[in-house]
């Protein structure tokens, strides 16, 4: 922590000193700065930097001082998103990292058009008013929880010794992502809270049976067999709960990082279907798959997507077993939008409408008895939702009582993601194509 601040203060000082010399520019001063900075100037004056200069928008009015190329070069070299604003809070420069992280922040617009956090807004006002460095920390809840800390410092080009109140020419804003650190602190607390709440019931039951076996049922062979069976059930329920809670925590840890591997949806679906065939046979359910033949590349974490579709198909098999059939399809979304649509439809008893909006909440069960019977933990769909949020995908559930249920997932195609400005596509990976007929009906 201390080191990070030092680095940043140093960077800000460097920019300040450098800007000062660049503007005043007495020849001997350059000699003092030394070789390292000469290299920086070289890079700052490179064709790329000059092009960037020509692209900037026109100042609105009055004499506007722009960050000079050397300041920009320093800002680009920082390992964190960096934005420079003028004393009015109008954005004058944004480095590439900031554009990647926060999307396009238009130069000439106020900073708070893009970053509305009150803490940042207030800190910026204080920097200008009090002419001193400030930090601001805030939490962004949407779309996934992210913590940020901004370090702001005023920068002066021409210090005026006679002025009573000096306004900085620029404010440099460097934003650090604290998400990982904060999340691991929170994760531990949440895990303990959830685990202790949900594990208490099976644990109480286990303890009860152990006490009975130690006492009254000590020599009762029939009761012992029966109790041991129940204890086994409760213990495995606890195990499933812990597994699910752990995987939920793991997914939450990664929630703010967009997955970057290329995965073929069709191929992945076949793998999932193959792995669930035994469960389908056991429940006398027929899996009917209709997977489009062409490659359907998307950016994903393969294991996580496997978990999503396994959970959904497993649910369809378990809760829709009475329908005897589960339809699985994957294709280009007929509604357009350069995305893939995966649907899983069962013909079971369906879900009442009032439960639908709430199914993805953790520990929400539409039918508690049936969920317990089917060995559900109440976390399956919560896990699905979290993974899909990380993939910027959406889950749609359609159902009514007696009419089965359809779970649809819309995944952005790889090309759609590659065209969005915030993502860097990793190169070198090739999409594998899958050779299978367009329509395959698999009988059990």
């Amino acid at each position, binding site marked *: 922590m201390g080191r990070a601040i030092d680095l940043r203060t140093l960077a800000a000082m460097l920019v300040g000193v450098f800007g000062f010399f660049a503007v005043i520019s007495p020849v001997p001063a350059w000699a003092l700065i030394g070789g390292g900075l000469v290299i920086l100037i070289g890079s700052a004056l490179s064709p790329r930097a000059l092009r960037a200069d020509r692209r900037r928008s026109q100042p*609105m009015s009055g004499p506007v001082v722009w960050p000079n190329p050397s300041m920009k070069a320093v800002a680009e070299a920082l390992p964190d998103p960096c934005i420079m604003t003028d004393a009015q809070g109008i954005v004058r420069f944004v480095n590439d990292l900031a554009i990647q992280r926060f999307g396009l922040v238009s130069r000439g617009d106020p900073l708070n058009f893009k970053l509305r956090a009150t803490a940042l807004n207030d800190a910026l006002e204080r920097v200008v008013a009090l002419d001193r460095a400030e930090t601001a920390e805030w939490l962004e809840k949407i779309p996934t929880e992210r913590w940020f800390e901004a370090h702001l410092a005023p920068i002066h080009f021409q210090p005026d010794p006679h002025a009573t109140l000096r306004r900085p020419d620029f404010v440099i804003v460097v934003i650090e992502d604290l998400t990982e650190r904060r999340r691991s602190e929170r994760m531990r607390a949440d895990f303990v809270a959830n685990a202790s709440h949900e594990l208490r019931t099976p644990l109480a039951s286990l303890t009860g049976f152990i006490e009975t076996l130690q006492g009254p049922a000590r020599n009762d062979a029939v009761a012992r067999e029966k109790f041991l069976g129940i204890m086994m059930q409760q213990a495995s329920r606890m195990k499933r709960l812990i597994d699910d809670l752990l995987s939920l925590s793991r997914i939450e840890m990664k929630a703010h990082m967009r997955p970057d591997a290329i995965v073929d949806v069709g191929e992945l679906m076949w793998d999932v279907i193959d792995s669930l065939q035994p469960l389908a046979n056991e429940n006398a359910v027929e899996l009917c798959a209709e997977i489009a033949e062409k490659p359907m590349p998307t950016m994903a974490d393969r294991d996580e997507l496997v978990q999503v579709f396994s959970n959904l198909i497993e649910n369809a098999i378990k809760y829709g077993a009475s329908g005897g059939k589960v339809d699985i399809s994957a294709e280009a979304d007929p509604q357009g939008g350069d995305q893939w649509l995966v649907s899983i439809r069962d013909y079971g008893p369906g879900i009442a409408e009032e439960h639908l909006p709430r199914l993805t909440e953790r520990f929400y069960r539409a039918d508690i008895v049936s969920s317990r019977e089917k060995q559900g933990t109440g976390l399956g769909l919560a896990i699905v939702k979290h993974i899909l949020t990380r993939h910027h995908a959406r889950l749609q559930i359609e159902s009514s009582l007696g009419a089965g249920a359809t779970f649809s997932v819309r995944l952005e195609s790889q090309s759609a993601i590659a065209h969005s400005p915030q993502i860097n596509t990793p190169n070198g990976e090739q999409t594998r194509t899958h050779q299978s007929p367009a329509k395959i009906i698999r009988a059990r």
Partner: protein
Amino acid sequence: MADHIVSSYDQELKLLMTKIAEMGGLAEGLVADSVTALTRMDIGLAQKVVLTDARLDRLQHEVEERAILLIARRQPMALDLREIMGALRISNDLERVGDLAKNIAKRVTAMHGNMVAKQLVIGVEHLSEIALEQLKAVLDAFTTRDDAVAMEVRKRDDEIDALYTSLFRELLTYMMEDPRNISSCTHLLFCAKNIERIGDHATNIAETVHFVVTGEQMIEERLKSDGSSMIGSIGAE
């Protein structure tokens, strides 16, 4: 930032928009904090929300004054005038959003640590997540003048309504099961209603954005899918 000398109409207008963005950030923060206070029963945070809301009210007055001055001095036409009218309407909506968040915070204090079933609170939190998404999307749509995003927000309000109806039903069931639940469930019900209203304000803002960008008023009535007004005879079922 408040005392700089404005030299052009554009700059005055941009300053007005900055104030709207500031109100937006503040309102988003209040909603998020009030719901966090509710889920964690954090009375300190709840009190902070109540105090911060006053700032939103002050900002709204400031926006109003600036807007009136702008209209009086510059007599804007067409898009310029629409932008100022839009800013006025949105500041009204955001001020109301702040009031609703404040009301949730006050209820947290009133509930006094009497926690209701965890599942219900998760439901309210879920509702607030969608409302916050809507608010964020529509505020971004306003600064970028993106009509498509605004219309998307307007369509998604159904999701909030459906979730609210579901929560309403469940809360009612809880109250009937055990009269001791009534007081805390009522507070929670109002919290949910407030969040649902916040979603409605996001829809209002979406319509304003549409008006600013296209010059057309949204006339067609949006179909309300909040079915809670139909639930009454649940006990007789």
